[in-house]
């Protein structure tokens, strides 16, 4: 089956580009995949299905949404909250009306009024301050002939938003451990946080909790890897918490090899998020593959990680206390770190195995491309047979047949 594949690709700096680069070689063992060039507006002729990778970043996914609008197809939904994407392809293109329409379509008159507030700069951008309340996923869901998602969280949210098409959950694949030597860094333990340094990654809470942990574990170090987001004053926070000395190791944006070496050096990985856009964390997946214990926020996909591999911290009044307790526990219990690390590696090998994930994703695309026609044919056959023996639509017998079709997922 021929598939046109719309996705950011390396060298574009995007987690979804990395994801596609990992998955494509395996996916091509099942499907004839043609990756389209960035900016392509329509799928090539002769393809059986177009697959659109949709995430929240308008720079990476704006052109893909444009193509989806022209030719509906399967959507791999990497984030459920798409407010930033929608704002990017409307306000970002000087189309304020488009933004207002999107807000009204999904949130009614109140949504439109709020949109006016944003356009008039009387309200802060909703995609920055309250995106989870206004996900703006409706247009993408409406265009999707079928959805592939990575988590139960996004599955439930899509169903909750009224999506009734084929919806298939396929876990995010895990990268094979490249086997690089760990970076030589001090820290006992060394706790790592990877990704942009900002409030949505809960860095303020992490710093505060880590400062407490250091009182009992003075040899502990916190490795922060990633660019500091504009407006986030990291240095001032570190000074205030007394972490500006040898408590912190800082690296900015790093290349893939350095990333793996740094990740391998860590004893504990922290992957915090609030609000969540519904994303699956590529760095958390890498940490699983390396066999590292995780501390995560108890939201979205992160909350679905088994307790055996991740300590989960809720957002709220006790967040810093709980975070400090989780980090303190792992700092003082190498045996627990080892046990959780082994479970993490097993999870990566089983649930996130690249070969299986590719097979499941190919199955999902084939199901989306041809499954509806098959369902229709089955229904036609069964209806004809039922009518042939006098079972009419709306009768109790017809309802019973429909119920049994539905039980085995043959209900169209």
């Amino acid at each position, binding site marked *: *089956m021929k598939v046109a594949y719309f996705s950011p690709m390396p060298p574009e700096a995007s987690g979804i580009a990395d994801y596609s680069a990992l998955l494509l070689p395996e996916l091509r063992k099942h499907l004839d995949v043609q990756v389209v060039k960035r900016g392509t507006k329509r799928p090539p002729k002769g393809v059986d299905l177009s697959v659109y990778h949709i995430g929240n970043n308008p720079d990476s996914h704006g052109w893909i949404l444009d193509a989806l609008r022209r030719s509906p197809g399967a959507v791999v939904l990497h984030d459920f909250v798409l407010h930033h994407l929608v704002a990017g392809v409307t306000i970002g293109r000087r189309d304020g009306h488009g933004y207002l329409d999107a807000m009204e379509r999904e949130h009614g008159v109140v949504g439109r009024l709020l949109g006016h507030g944003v356009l008039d700069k009387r309200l802060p951008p909703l995609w920055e301050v309250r995106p989870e309340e206004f996900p703006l996923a409706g247009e993408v869901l409406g265009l999707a002939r079928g959805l592939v998602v990575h988590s139960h969280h996004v599955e439930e949210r899509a169903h909750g938003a009224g999506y009734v098409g084929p919806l298939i959950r396929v876990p995010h694949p895990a990268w094979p451990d490249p086997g690089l030597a760990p970076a030589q860094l001090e820290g006992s333990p060394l706790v790592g946080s990877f990704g942009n340094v900002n409030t949505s990654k809960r860095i303020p809470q992490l710093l505060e909790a880590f400062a407490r942990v250091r009182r009992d574990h003075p040899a502990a170090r916190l490795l922060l890897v990633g660019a500091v987001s504009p407006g986030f004053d990291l240095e001032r926070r570190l000074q205030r918490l007394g972490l500006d000395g040898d408590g912190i190791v800082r690296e900015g944006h790093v290349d893939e090899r350095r990333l793996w070496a740094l990740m391998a050096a860590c004893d504990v990985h922290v992957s915090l998020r609030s609000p969540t856009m519904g994303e699956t964390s590529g760095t958390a997946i890498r940490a699983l593959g390396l066999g590292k214990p995780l501390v995560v926020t108890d939201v979205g996909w992160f909350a679905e990680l088994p307790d055996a591999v991740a300590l989960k911290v809720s957002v709220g009044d006790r967040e810093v206390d709980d975070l400090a307790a989780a980090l303190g526990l792992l700092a003082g219990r190498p045996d627990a770190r080892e046990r959780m690390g082994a479970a993490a590696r097993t999870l990566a090998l089983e649930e996130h195995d690249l070969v299986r994930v590719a097979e499941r994703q190919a199955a999902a695309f084939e*199901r*989306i*491309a*041809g*499954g509806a026609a098959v369902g229709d044919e089955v229904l036609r056959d069964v209806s004809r047979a039922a009518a042939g023996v006098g079972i009419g639509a709306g009768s109790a017998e017809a309802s019973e047949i429909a119920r*049994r079709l539905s039980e*085995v*997922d043959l209900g169209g």
Partner: protein
Amino acid sequence: MRIAILRPQVPFARGGAEIFTDELVDELRLRGHEADLVSVPFKWYPGARVLTQAFLWRLLDLEEADGRTIDLVVATKFPSYVVRHREKRVWLVHQFRQAYELDGTTLGQFGDSPEERGLRRRVQELDRVALGEATRLFATSANVAGRLERSTGLVAEVLPHPPQQLRYRHETSTGFVLSASRLDRAKRIDLLLEALALDPTLEAVITSDGPDRERLEELARARGIDGRARFEGRVSPERLAELYATCSSVFYAPVDEDFGMGPYEAFLSAKPVITTSDAGGPLDVVHDRRTGLVVAPAATAVASAAAWLREHETDAEAFGAAGKALADEVTWDRAIGRLLG
């Protein structure tokens, strides 16, 4: 207990699954159970017929019959396990193999169009749902269990069953190789015929019938071996037992077979088996140089193996005896004990 054994039936076809289910019913009755066979015709083409025919099983009401409860149903092969029952046990003979390992091979069914790809996936989904409902899940061989786990993630207990009942006995070899498999392409009888063509000292008796018979007989004629390869068609149980008793070895080399009763029948006659390294289920019991010879799927290798077993009677006897010890362990008492346990 009242037990219904479920068997899809391709009209006019009879093979290992039919023999197995008939005997299972008999054996359950012998042990005091009220057992009966429930059979529904099966046709898997064209188009989505494979699913609509499978769905027929879902419409059956087997919770009770004639006002009396059916305590347990035992589904066997696709699509009988689509049935609904509170105590559905599955003794899996095979799934719809065209949707799995045969896909993309000459034995496959589904083409490359989105509709056919989608149909294959719907069959797989049906399996996941229907087999996932089973209260206990058994597979006739490690090969079948392995395929099931790879395709659905479901884990089955391996539970082989005894072969058909014949008056198995052991007699001195008269030097021929026996093939008693159904004559269809997947059984690869042509490997044996090509082996005979390579070694003019080899002789074979080929029993049974099937859609590949004409082609195989033509092949034998074309290779000039029709005097040494004797096609006997369907034979009586007495004749089959006699052939097992007097052969030098049994050839059984299907492609990735589910279970395969051939080796068990050979072993109960204390005869060694020649199989191939890609035969699947038979490899559970045919162990190279212990109960037979496992060779590459090539005519030269089959010819060498057949000649070696004919010329090394002591080794052949030892392999056959070791096979018999294995086959003697597979009894209806044990199988039914686990099935109903």
